[in-house]
């Protein structure tokens, strides 16, 4: 299939007022493309959790979303501290979010589990001191 649409976003660090903008934009674009609402909802939830993590736990980064007729592929690459123990980070309830972030309603330690739950494929590549790249795929069909 030739018709792959690519969307790119830069996520700025520490900007909570703007956090979620990439996810909102992707949601709107998918709607315009006529993607089924249940698929849009899955992509929106997974992407938002990843986008917020890039703001809270890393120093921002880049999001690339590829929309093809079969699937939606999201790549979130940040320039943060990396994740020392991925299986610990994936545990529901585990969070290193600082108090001022928790007071905004974050820090339940559910973000990564939501990303896993709402996607058909998820891969985490991380290197301490360099950054983390998370790839997620939601099947359209």
């Amino acid at each position, binding site marked *: 299939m030739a018709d792959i649409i690519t969307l790119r976003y830069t996520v700025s660090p520490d900007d909570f*007022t703007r*956090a979620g903008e990439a996810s909102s934009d992707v949601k709107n674009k998918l709607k315009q493309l006529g993607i089924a*609402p249940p698929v849009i909802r899955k992509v929106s939830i997974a992407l938002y959790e990843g986008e917020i993590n890039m703001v809270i736990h890393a120093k921002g980064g880049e999001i690339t979303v590829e929309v093809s007729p079969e699937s939606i592929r999201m790549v979130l690459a940040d320039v943060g501290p990396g994740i020392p123990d991925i299986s610990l980070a994936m545990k529901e309830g585990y969070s290193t979010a600082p108090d001022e972030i928790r007071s*905004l*309603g974050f820090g*339940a330690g*559910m*973000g990564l589990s*939501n990303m896993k739950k709402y996607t058909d494929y998820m891969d985490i590549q991380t290197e301490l001191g360099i950054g983390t790249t998370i790839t997620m795929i939601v099947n359209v069909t």
Partner: protein
Amino acid sequence: MTVQDLTAQKEFVPVHVGKTADREITKTFCCDLLSIAMGKAPEGCAWITVMANMNTLAVASLADAACIVLAEDVHLDETALQKAAEQDISVFETKLPIFEAALLVYRKINGE
């Protein structure tokens, strides 16, 4: 019961009622932690919370809640108000505690 029907409830003050106000409210959902709400809030629910900020709006929109009910007399700030209008997210405020606000919506949904 639709989002529009909630505006008739004197305890609930509409802050922004969007173009999609004819949307049916399917369920009641209560939680203040954003990623729990993100993962568990049913589509089309009325989400009752005391967490009133930009991120609440983003979660409601992306998880596809029908409306937000801010309990315990909490308020959105000016920027968040603007965002609710821009993104057309229906928001109500109430002085009621979370449980009572949720119970009221629940009873309405069930035609009581």
